[in-house]
């Protein structure tokens, strides 16, 4: 079993086309061959403050952004979505696909001086990733053992071939933690989570809650010559306008996540001192959609769902609500995952007349006040932009006689109401598709992914035997070509059965000072370590 990604090519032009105005490539990036300058402090910004700095345990976007500097994984993705050695120097898979052998570096030490060995890998995969990581249990379900014949070899044994694990070995998803410091403790409450010891390019220095996290260069880092920066300081700034201001005054130089409000992107891009970069998020691949609660009338009738699909103008949504930083989605899989993406999927064009005709046919006639149907809608609680989209949905659906009441909840209420109580008519959300649909897309359509109380699971309640069959074939098929065909079939079924309307491929972005060079543009670059970055104009 080879990694499905070794043949993957990214269509970056497609991605950039959706970003609207031309993207200014940082002049520094073009200066190939310019020698990196060492030294300097980089001030980065985070929001919200992470709960802990060991992303392997308490994973969240800001936690990963910090943690990737302190910890390494076995491998990393490079710009071509190929696997690059990190703590592992090489790897091979057995013929039947059930054994993966990693050869590890022999010159790595933890920040406290202890040597890194395969025992750390075994511990991390079995005790942390499988037991404590929120997704690890599902992704590594078939991992039964990790043998360590010598300090620099780790042999992973699976009960069945699992192509999906290749999408999870990168350091941002699966971290390697120090066994000697975590074994025997409860990983979740280990005080080291607030002052971590890793193998990474930067050493943890201090964390002043609510204000800053400070990291310093690791002088004994295994990737010789790197990192270039002396220090990295992560500031916590909650307000988007304040973040934009910090960038513009130069007080902050790098903001990897949610840097500035969408509406400011054009202005920041136009500034010659600042750069907006949309590359670096193809790994997580955020996809935005509109879910129906199939448990509720009248959403059992497919004509009603189709009517909604025809009433939502995805292009207008992308341009107005998301300021062009999104592209209409043809299906559940992003178009830049060219090896999985199915062309010629059934689409629902923006057509009010068709929508109204469908609703009439479904028996939802207009009342005296012009209203056919009264429903509620819960926008994703992950940001203001999604609430604005909710306002758009409200007005758009009004045109076909559907009166929408918006319910804006905070994050914990949103999770409770949508994913535990299923107390909604419709909701909109984005999920990460991840590099393999089995990790990201599957959980929206699989009946086994209906897990009460679990966020980002199957909320619509779709339980279709045809879809389930395709999904289960995808999970077990070892042959890449056959599997890709099944993945294309899944996309077609998703569009035809329409338990949710696939709206947009979102474009996430970073904003940073034009003086920075060496920004990581790999698919997970938005979250990865800053070891390649240097300050040089």
């Amino acid at each position, binding site marked *: 079993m080879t990694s499905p990604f070794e043949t993957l090519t990214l269509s970056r032009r497609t991605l950039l086309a959706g970003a609207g105005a031309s993207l200014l490539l940082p002049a520094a990036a073009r200066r190939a061959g310019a020698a990196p300058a060492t030294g300097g*402090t980089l*001030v980065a910004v985070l929001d*919200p*403050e992470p*709960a*802990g700095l060991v992303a392997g345990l*308490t*994973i*969240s*976007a800001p*936690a990963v952004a910090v943690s990737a500097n302190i910890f390494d994984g076995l491998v990393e993705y490079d710009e071509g979505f190929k696997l690059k050695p990190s703590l592992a120097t090489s790897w091979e898979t057995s013929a039947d696909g059930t054994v993966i052998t990693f050869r590890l570096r022999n010159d790595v030490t933890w920040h406290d001086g202890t040597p890194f060995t395969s025992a750390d890998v075994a511990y991390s995969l079995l005790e942390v990733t499988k037991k*404590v*990581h*929120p*997704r690890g*249990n*599902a992704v590594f379900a078939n991992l039964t053992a990790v043998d360590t014949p010598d300090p620099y070899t780790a042999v992973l044994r699976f009960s069945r071939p699992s192509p999906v694990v290749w999408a999870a070995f990168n350091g941002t998803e699966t971290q390697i933690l120090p066994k000697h410091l975590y074994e025997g403790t*409860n990983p*979740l*409450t280990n*005080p080291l*989570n*607030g002052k971590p010891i890793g193998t990474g390019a930067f050493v943890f220095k201090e964390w*002043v*809650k*609510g*204000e*800053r996290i400070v990291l310093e260069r690791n002088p004994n880092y295994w990737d010789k010559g790197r990192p270039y920066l002396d220090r990295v*300081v992560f*500031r*916590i*700034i*909650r*307000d988007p*306008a*304040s973040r934009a*201001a*910090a960038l*513009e*005054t130069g*007080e902050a130089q790098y903001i990897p996540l949610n840097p500035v409000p969408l509406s400011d992107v054009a202005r920041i891009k136009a500034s010659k001192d600042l750069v907006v970069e949309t590359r670096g998020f193809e790994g997580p691949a955020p996809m935005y959609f509109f879910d129906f609660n199939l448990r509720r009338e009248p959403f059992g009738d497919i004509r009603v769902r189709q009517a909604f699909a025809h009433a939502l103008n995805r292009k207008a949504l992308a341009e107005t609500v998301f300021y062009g930083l999104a592209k209409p989605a043809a299906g559940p899989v992003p178009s830049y995952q060219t090896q999985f993406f199915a062309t010629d999927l059934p689409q629902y064009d923006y057509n009010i007349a068709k929508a109204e005709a469908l609703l009439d046919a479904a028996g939802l006639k207009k009342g005296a006040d012009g209203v056919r149907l009264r429903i509620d809608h819960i926008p994703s*609680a992950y940001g203001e932009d999604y609430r604005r989209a909710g306002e758009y949905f409200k007005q758009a659906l009004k045109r076909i006689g559907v009166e929408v009441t918006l319910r804006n*909840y*905070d*994050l*914990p*209420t*949103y*999770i*409770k109401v949508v994913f*535990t109580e299923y107390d909604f008519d419709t909701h909109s959300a984005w999920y*990460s598709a991840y590099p393999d649909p089995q990790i990201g897309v599957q*959980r929206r359509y699989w009946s086994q992914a209906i*897990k*009460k*109380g*679990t*966020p*980002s*699971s199957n909320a619509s309640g779709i339980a279709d035997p045809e879809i389930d069959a395709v999904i289960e074939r995808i999970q077990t098929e070892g042959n890449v070509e056959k599997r890709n065909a099944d993945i294309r079939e899944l996309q077609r079924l998703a569009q035809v059965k329409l338990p949710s309307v696939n709206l947009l491929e979102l474009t996430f972005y970073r904003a940073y000072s034009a003086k920075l060079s060496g920004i990581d543009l790999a698919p997970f670059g938005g979250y990865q370590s800053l070891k390649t970055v240097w300050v040089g104009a």
Partner: protein
Amino acid sequence: MARALQLPEGRVLRYLGLRVVQVVPTILAIVVLNFFFLRLAPGDLAEVMAGEAGSATPEYMAMLRQQFGLDEPLAIQFFKYMGQLFQLNLGYSFRNSMPVLDLILTRAPNTALLMLSSLVLAVALGILFGAISAQWRGRWPDGVLSAFSTIGFATPLFWVGLMLIVLFSVELRWLPAGGMRDLQQVHTGLAAVGDVALHMVLPVLSLAFFYIAIYTRLTRSAMLEVQELDFVRTARAKGIAPLPIAVRHVLRNALLPIVTMTGLQLGTLLSGSVVIETVFAWPGMGRLAFDAVFQRDINLLLGVLFFSSFLVIVSNLATDLVYALLDPRIDVR
């Protein structure tokens, strides 16, 4: 003045003791009430962490709940909490991986610094504006100053803050755009003090702009009222020049409501800071409390409520005492 300040010490102590006894049930009631009330909020910390993770398995969430002690029966959680409280242990904040008391003690001084500075500035300017307004009542200084202070009170605080940032930080580059300290270099000693002071300018100005109105109006009306009193009219009739009258008699007696007001405002330090700390990324207690609500960090929120209630009560007590000391007519009961 010296005569007014005399008060038998025994009475003061007895008064204080009585007030403390009266006050303990109030604080307890606040804690108990909120312990149950906060749990009415849908969702819990496990859901927040799972939500931030982007996905989670039910097993993961069950494990989190077990870690946080959320799976125990409510009565047990309550008794455990009260038991800890009596040892002045405010519990552990799982979201921040720190004991609640430590977290509060690191953030409270930041808020106090900001709010106290704003209060001082607002009181000083307010008294000045109020005195001018009262002295020139009905003429243009009165109108202008009253208008200015009213605008300050009426304009939403966050708007003022954001506009100040746009003007002074982004356009003029005179002042930092937020935060409490310069994070690129580490300053020490006097430079560190100067650094923090620089970061304080905009937030303090925004806050003071709001509070000035209160003190201007208070001073103005208090002074106007006292000006009508007999002993002031007598002094004027005696031919004593207006300025000494203003300063000695009138101002001193106008201090009473100002002191009361300041005491009251001191007690509500926390609320005003939520908005300001958000806009200026100031690491204070207001924002800590606000985040705790949305992270369902009940321990932390309870701790903050406890702490701030304690502060309110202490400042009320202090205000009462000062009030009693200043006004011999008020009996300390």
